[in-house]
């Protein structure tokens, strides 16, 4: 366990040395919310969605969580292509421990990007409570783990071709974000669209976080189902990524 934390600390040290990216991420979030969030909340009927600005803000945070999870996958692939992965795989740490350290890195990355905007948004919409922040952070954390696991699982493609990996991840990202409820409540989605959105993990993560923060539950998925799905995706994709690292990713550049 000590070595897992040492490795995670080392990776987080690298992360913290790139502070500019966090400031950019927060600035982008603020700008997106101030411009598009405000504008769209004026376009949406207050009768249908009484608090669309808040709905939009949480959706935006879910997208940051998604990007952050994808970033961990990219980080993993970069390790491989810059020749660092064989070194990490030669360290006295189990493959599970290695992935756990990557997951901790992912959590740190996500939380640094998400917590300040979450607290500020909740403060401005008058819903800031310690419990709300705590449980919303857990929901977003679970979602982040699931996305991380998913992206690391896909990383085996990168060992064949980095171009195919980039194309698959870009396509997957577009589908998972667009076919989800990050910007639109499920009950307003057209019939042909809503079943597809149930396949996106972001739908469950976004609606669960909104429910925790007190959004109108009639416009959301059942929170129990959402919590179960988000947890299952986190456990399932992480287990899959463990298997992949253990069994498939051994074709890392040997010399």
């Amino acid at each position, binding site marked *: 366990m000590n070595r897992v934390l*040492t490795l995670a600390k*080392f990776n987080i040290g*690298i992360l913290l040395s790139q502070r500019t990216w966090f400031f950019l991420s927060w600035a982008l979030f603020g700008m997106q919310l101030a411009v598009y969030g405000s504008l769209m909340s004026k376009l949406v009927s207050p009768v249908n969605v009484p608090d669309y600005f808040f709905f939009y803000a949480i959706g935006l945070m879910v997208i940051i969580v998604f990007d952050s999870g994808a970033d961990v996958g990219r980080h993993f692939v970069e390790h491989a292509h810059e*020749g660092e992965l*064989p070194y990490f795989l030669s*360290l006295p*740490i189990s493959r599970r421990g290695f992935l756990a350290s990557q997951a901790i890195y992912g959590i740190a990355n996500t939380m640094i990007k998400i917590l300040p905007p979450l607290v500020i948004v909740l403060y401005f919409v008058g819903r800031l409570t310690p419990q709300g922040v705590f449980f919303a952070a857990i929901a977003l954390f679970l979602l982040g783990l699931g996305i991380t696991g998913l992206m690391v699982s896909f990383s085996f493609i990168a060992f064949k071709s980095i171009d195919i990996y980039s194309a698959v991840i870009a396509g997957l990202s577009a589908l998972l974000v667009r076919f989800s409820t990050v910007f639109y409540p499920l009950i307003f989605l057209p019939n042909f669209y809503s079943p597809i959105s149930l396949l996106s993990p972001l739908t469950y993560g976004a609606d669960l976080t909104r429910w925790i923060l007190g959004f109108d539950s009639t416009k959301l998925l059942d929170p129990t189902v959402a919590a179960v799905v988000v947890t299952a995706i986190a456990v399932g994709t992480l287990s899959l990524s463990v298997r992949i690292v253990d069994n498939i990713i*051994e074709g890392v550049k*040997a010399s």
Partner: protein
Amino acid sequence: METLNLIKKYGKTDALRGLDFKVDPGEIMVILGPNGSGKTTLLMILCTILKPSSGTVKVMGLDVVEEGTRVREVMGIAFQEARGFWRHKPSSILKFHASMFDIEPSKRQDLIEQTMKDLELWESRDKMFMHLSGGQAKRLETAKVLIQRPKLAIFDEPTSQVDLRGKRKIWDKIKELRDQGSTIIVATNEVREAEYLADRVTILHSGQRVVCDTIPRLKDAIAGGDIVEVEFEDPVSNKLVEDLKSLGGGLSLSPQGNQLRAKVSRAEDWVPKMTSASYNLGSKISSIRITEPSLDDVFLHFTGRGLEDQQ
């Protein structure tokens, strides 16, 4: 450390073909072979990065497939290509490495400083990894293993890209590590490196072990154990070659211009006869050089091809 019938396939390519290989505790085993002979693949399996397609591999009695984490606790590897972190300084890379191998924090700094000084890296301590030269990056790779002092230390071409002075330092540190009790495997295609370091040499060719023994015994195994190189003032005549062949004791003669290279069983018997025969034919000798066969000759003898020809 032992492998039994080790096979590794990459798709349809056989990298290792039924390799039986054993290293005794406390020795430096040099694996000598050209590029593509399977050296790096073998080392990657030993350090658990690659998995064997079939066969058994044990390190300190631990199975590399079943007990990978425990194997990694007792071994350290200096990779053929230096593995660093682009924006890190050498000292922070070594600190991280030391912390992963539970080296006491109180001893870490001194150990790192001393190792960096020994390998002439101390002057580069404030450079980022990406700004190190190829030779400096290789020395840093070696430094990782030296501060770790593992029970099994593996060096994959430890002095490629390193200057002559640096090579000697690395070789001496590797020997020092052996003297401190580590078992060492060095993979190389440099004959000089193998001659300097090896307690025993394993020659690997096309994924198979060709031969394994000490260097003197490998050299003795070549028929015609001494090599005599003679330079004449004039081109070597056919008559002289014929006369020398009739002397006996010369197993092969290779005349080329003014020079003659002879593989003989006992140079001390053959040389006086050769000088006498040359004198009788009026061929004046400029110089005589008696050498042992090199490891390249050994490689040539056992594989039918020169090591350097295959690089």
